[in-house]
């Protein structure tokens, strides 16, 4: 693909594999093929970068702890339950 706004059928098919590529779930041979394509296709390279950033943003949100007041109430409930 040469134009970012006009994905070819091949690029559309590859899009379905991008998540698995980014998650490391493709076979080595398929991974190499996708990696080569991403390097040479502006559209797929851009999409890969955006998906990667999106995944990173989501993962950065993981594991948020409740505020102290909420945790205090949670601890009090545990204490009452185990008493």
């Amino acid at each position, binding site marked *: 693909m040469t134009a970012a706004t006009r994905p070819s059928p091949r690029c559309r098919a590859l899009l379905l594999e991008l998540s698995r590529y980014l998650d490391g779930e493709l076979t080595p041979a398929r991974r190499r093929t996708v990696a080569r394509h991403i390097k040479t296709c502006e559209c797929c390279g851009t999409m890969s970068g*955006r998906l990667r950033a999106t995944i990173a943003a*989501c*993962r950065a949100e993981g*594991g948020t*702890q409740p505020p102290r*007041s909420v*945790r205090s109430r949670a601890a009090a409930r545990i204490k009452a339950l185990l008493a």
Partner: protein
Amino acid sequence: MTKQARGGGVTKSRRLNPLERAPTAGEGEDEYAGLVTAAGAGNASALEQLLMRAQEVAWRFSNTVCGHASDAEDAMQEALIKTFRHVGRIRDPLAFRPWLYRTVRNACLMSRRKKVDEPARLQSWDDVLPGPEGPMRLDAPHPGKDPEQLAHNAALRRRLRTAMRGLPAQYRTIVFLREMEGLSTREVAKVMGISEDNVKTRLHRARVQLQASLGASES
């Protein structure tokens, strides 16, 4: 860093390089399984940790997926009681984590069955993140941090929150479980009651939709 360590107050341990900390299948399972085994053997500290985690999961699910902060305490109470009753009967400790998330999901969705697809008032993550004295806003000044980076993070969080709000409830749940809570694809499939291939497909579609929303809000 383990979730136990995060429980000690480091609330954003995955922020530094998230993609390198991609959830690994079995990592979280083992951690929960260890607590379940210890709690089942009478370790009071392990039981308390497990009960606290169950409530934290319920709080995050309520706020992130259901988007109704008012329901969070009810969901936490439900998760606490069900975990307490369930933990002594567990035969396969590895099955605990999917059970917990499924229980929390059911508790949250039951209480908001009619409104779960309409998260009109999705809880603001900015408002609920903890600071030294309770919730703090991410865009508030933070000594020792690069203000430009903080502003960027806060803006990104706001955009992500808005983008999450636009996802169908099921996609939002999968993103939450897989990306934010670090469950494996297999665990997510168990929680959702769908195949692993379905999880992968829906996760991919959710990612594409999220990136489109994030890109649109950036421009």
